[in-house]
């Protein structure tokens, strides 16, 4: 109660500080004058009396300071004083401070960087007006709907605003004599209205616009040189002239999210486009309410446009566009990504703990070497609490500096990451900016670190009794193996074992993945991706003609063994189908899901995928000819059992019968880690619909790189308005390899970091122990101990600590690495004994290295000096 009143009084003081100073001056003046009066009454002349009175009073400034401090909040003053003291102490002992701050900087830097990336990838908001009232609408169980259906729903005014977009589209941009393939988001004309996406220059696409485009900042800078006169500029896209009407801001984030970063936004031109629907809800409408409005509207839609068995009113989904909620509803791809980030956060959390343990250990060492000073302070009446506060202030200062340095590392790394363009088929670029969430997180981390690092030393340090102070001068023979510092080191070593096991697993995974054969040849293959302007190739016959001409040209190039066309490039693209299949041997339908590809003659030879039985596709397998197919071994076995499928027939649902021409050897289709995938091939010529994306696969007799210019020219001549991207197949594998590379890089480096920090901790403890036992060592040497004996002394302590750390670490690692299995390919098993053996050996080796310097120090002890040592 009185404390409360006191606080109120102090607060009141804050309000009248300036008045206070003036009042105090008046009071002091009065005091001095009154004294002077007395002296004057006793006979002293007035001026002398005044001077004397002032002298007697003493320094008014200091007194004013003290008086003021009576009113100020003590803890604030104390904290400031403590921090000042701590700063001075660190200046006197820079090595200690530098080590502690460096450890924290690394730990906090890693931690905050992963946090930043996770926040951006998983939780970022799209750059729209009021993201919480914008939702994504999926109808009929599809993620996108045709434009016709979209217009129906839009005109039914189910929601205040409904727009659509397709982010998977591309367009050929013809700029003087060059054609570039751009990533474009096709949007309905009301898209910018409904979403409220802000622009930096110009005005966005508006209802009624059909030829205006909005550029992204990146495209404007990279491809147009950031030209200031960009608004109104004309671009030739897919044979149409479009006008640039706006440029998006630099920090634009798409509604698709996850760092997706297209080149530009353009209106939908083809009515057969599928668009993903986004709806603007009235403020306060829940997603559930929106769902209930959607159903009747879709039922109307089904009545207006009946489509066989498919009903738009089934499988309705309304999902959020921002934040965590998005993860649940996005592609299954994102769940493992979220899981991976969870693993990363745990990993960097461990690294941070190891770093904190180092700081705690350093503080402990300092506390015990200052035990004398602390004992004296305790004896002259400094409360234990006060000293604990001092130690806390020290570790707070260390944490603050460490956090500052860590944030610098974070900003450095994230800026670097923001510049990288990942080599993926879809353009992804992360826009990682430091924001208030990062600062809040960093502050929380710093606070936790500082408490964690200082608690043990503070409690221990002030528990220093007089006995310790007295013993300070005496030699310590105690076999105190399990002191707090030693326990900390063992903990650090154990934690780094866990980290190393994880890192090692991912490294093995990478090696495994690199060595993994995709089942087709990548050493000699070139992949040429030619995208035609769709409007020019509405007639499938025209496309087929071009394809035939292209393949012929490619085959005639020098150094080319063979070439073929394919619809899908393995490990980069994917088409799947799930359906009922029956055969001429078994009319009962079997449900299968398989990868499907449409390939031209020579494909299997170009990719060096052996045909196990039967034959490849031939030029005779054209449109109009009887339908044929090739199965892979898995599919053949699934559908036909042990029977050789060649020359038998398959049938999908109630469709035509299709002759099985042959069986291809199993290979990888979408990811290197997949197992037992089923695959199905049909001839390219017999594929449905015109496609503008042509993938040519060229096999070289020698190395593939020299062929590239020739291919470029050759295909370019066929149609200059087509965009070309040509690269050796080995480069194309980057996408497939990316997860294992990223995993190995991050976890491998975290493992190394953890190991480094733990070894610094071990080194520190050993060195400290040696320095504390200098007298003992000197005594032993004087009594005849050999260098080997001294060495054994040091090594034994190191061995005990390392063994304990390794033992505990292994026990923990066995459990800890199990959940990692889902990120690794099946051949890499987390429980493999080999992993633990290697990791244990690595740690033992590093521990030995850390022991080296303290051992040398011990050996160098001069017995005479040592016995005088206090």
């Amino acid at each position, binding site marked *: 109660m009185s404390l409360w009143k006191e606080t109120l009084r102090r607060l009141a003081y804050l309000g009248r500080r300036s008045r206070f100073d003036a009042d105090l001056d008046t009071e002091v003046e009065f005091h001095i004058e009154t004294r002077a009066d007395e002296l004057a009454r006793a006979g002293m002349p007035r001026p002398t009396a005044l001077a004397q009175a002032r002298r007697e009073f003493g320094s008014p400034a200091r007194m004013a300071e003290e008086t003021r401090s009576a009113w100020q909040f003590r803890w604030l003053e104390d904290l400031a004083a403590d921090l000042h003291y701590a700063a001075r102490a660190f200046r006197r002992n820079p090595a200690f401070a530098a080590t502690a701050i460096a450890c924290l900087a690394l730990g906090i830097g890693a931690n905050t960087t992963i946090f930043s990336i996770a926040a951006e990838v998983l939780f970022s908001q799209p750059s729209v007006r009021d993201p919480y009232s914008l939702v994504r609408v999926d109808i009929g169980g599809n993620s996108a709907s045709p434009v016709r259906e979209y217009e129906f729903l839009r005109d039914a005014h189910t929601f205040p605003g409904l727009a659509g977009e397709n982010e998977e589209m591309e367009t050929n941009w013809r700029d003087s004599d060059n054609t570039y393939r751009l990533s474009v988001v096709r949007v309905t004309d009301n898209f910018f209205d409904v979403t409220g996406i802000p622009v930096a220059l110009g005005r966005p696409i508006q209802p009624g616009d059909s030829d205006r485009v909005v550029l992204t900042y990146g495209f404007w800078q990279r491809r147009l040189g950031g030209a200031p006169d960009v608004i109104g500029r004309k671009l030739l896209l897919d044979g149409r002239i479009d006008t640039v009407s706006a440029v998006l801001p630099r920090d634009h984030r798409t509604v698709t999210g996850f760092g997706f970063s297209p080149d530009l936004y353009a209106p939908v031109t083809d009515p057969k486009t599928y668009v993903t629907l986004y709806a603007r809800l009235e403020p306060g409408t829940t997603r559930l309410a929106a769902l209930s409005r959607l159903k009747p509207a879709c039922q109307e839609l089904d009545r207006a446009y009946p489509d066989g068995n498919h009903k738009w009113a089934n499988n309705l989904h309304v999902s959020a566009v921002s934040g965590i909620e998005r993860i649940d509803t996005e592609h299954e791809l994102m769940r493992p990504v979220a899981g991976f980030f969870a693993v990363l956060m745990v990993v960097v959390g461990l690294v941070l703990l190891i770093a904190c343990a180092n700081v705690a250990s350093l503080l402990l060492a300092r506390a015990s070497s200052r035990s004398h000073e602390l*004992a*004296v302070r*305790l*004896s*002259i*009446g400094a409360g234990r609490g006060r000293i604990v506060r001092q130690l806390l202030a020290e570790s707070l200062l260390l944490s603050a500096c460490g956090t500052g340095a860590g944030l610098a590392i974070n900003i450095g790394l994230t800026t670097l990451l923001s510049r990288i363009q990942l080599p993926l088929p879809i353009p992804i670029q992360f826009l990682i900016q430091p924001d208030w969430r990062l600062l809040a997180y960093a502050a929380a981390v710093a606070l936790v670190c500082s408490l964690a690092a200082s608690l043990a030393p503070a409690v221990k340090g002030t528990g220093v*009794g*007089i006995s310790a*102070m*007295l013993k300070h001068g005496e030699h310590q023979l105690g076999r105190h193996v399990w002191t707090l510092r030693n326990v900390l080191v063992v903990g650090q070593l154990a934690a780094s074992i866990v980290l190393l096991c994880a890192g090692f697993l991912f490294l093995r995974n990478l090696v495994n993945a690199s060595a993994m054969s995709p089942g087709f040849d990548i050493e000699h293959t070139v992949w040429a991706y030619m995208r035609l302007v769709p409007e020019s190739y509405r007639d499938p016959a025209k496309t087929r003609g071009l394809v035939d001409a292209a393949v012929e040209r490619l085959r005639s190039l020098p150094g080319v063994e063979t070439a073929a066309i394919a619809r899908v490039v393995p490990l980069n693209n994917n088409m799947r189908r799930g359906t009922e299949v029956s055969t001429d041997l078994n009319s009962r339908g079997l449900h299968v899901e398989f990868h499907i590809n449409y390939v031209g003659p020579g494909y299997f030879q170009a990719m060096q995928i052996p045909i196990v039985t039967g034959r490849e596709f031939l030029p005779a397998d054209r449109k109009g000819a009887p339908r044929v197919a090739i199965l892979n071994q898995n599919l053949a076995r699934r559908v036909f059992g042990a029977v050789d499928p060649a020359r038998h027939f398959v049938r999908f649902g109630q469709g035509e019968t299709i002759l099985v021409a042959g069986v291809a050897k199993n290979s990888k289709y979408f990811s290197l880690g997949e197992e037992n995938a089923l695959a199905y091939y049909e001839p390219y010529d017999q594929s449905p619909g015109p496609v503008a994306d042509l993938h040519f696969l060229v096999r070289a007799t020698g190395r593939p790189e020299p062929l590239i210019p020739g291919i470029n020219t050759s295909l370019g001549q066929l149609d200059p308005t087509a965009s070309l991207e040509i690269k050796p197949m080995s480069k194309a594998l980057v996408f497939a390899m990316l997860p294992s590379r990223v995993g190995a890089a991050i976890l491998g480096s975290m493992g190394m970091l953890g190991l480094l920090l733990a070894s610094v901790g071990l080194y520190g403890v050993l060195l400290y122990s040696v320095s504390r036992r200098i007298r003992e060592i000197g005594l032993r040497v004087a009594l005849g101990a050999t260098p080997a004996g001294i060495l054994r002394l040091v090594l034994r302590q190191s061995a005990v600590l390392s063994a304990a750390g390794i033992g505990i670490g292994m026990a923990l690692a066995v459990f800890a690495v199990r959940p990692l299995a889902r990120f690794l390919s099946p051949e890499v098993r987390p429980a493999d004994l080999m992993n633990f053996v290697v990791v244990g050996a690595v740690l033992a080796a590093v521990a030995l290295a850390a022991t080296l310097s303290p051992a040398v120090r011990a050996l160098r002890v001069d017995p005479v000096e040592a016995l005088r040592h206090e």
Partner: protein
Amino acid sequence: MAKHERYQNRIELLQGTLDMLILQTLSWGAQHGYGIGQAIRAGSGDVLQVETGSLYPALHRLEKQGWIKSEWRNSEHNQRAKYYQLTAAGKKQLTSEYSRWSRMSAAIAGLMNPGESEGQA
């Protein structure tokens, strides 16, 4: 002068008074640190409890100033302990400290209870 914000329930003795009490205790004979603390406590009727954190630094200080000296002996339980004893200079210091303290406490008492010696207000 040392600042004490408030009295605590356990009275803590500060430098001057503690010195005097130690010297007084040793004037009855040599004693080790633990014994000195005990003697002060007992002698004051359990009011004055000396913390080891204060006692030993005080002993250290008094020894440095030459008012007490120490030597290692076997205690009553046959353990090795450091025994302190008063020096001649210490005896003189004790007298002067006590007289100073007496004057001081008398003055304070006088102020606190002005009935006896107080003149006009």
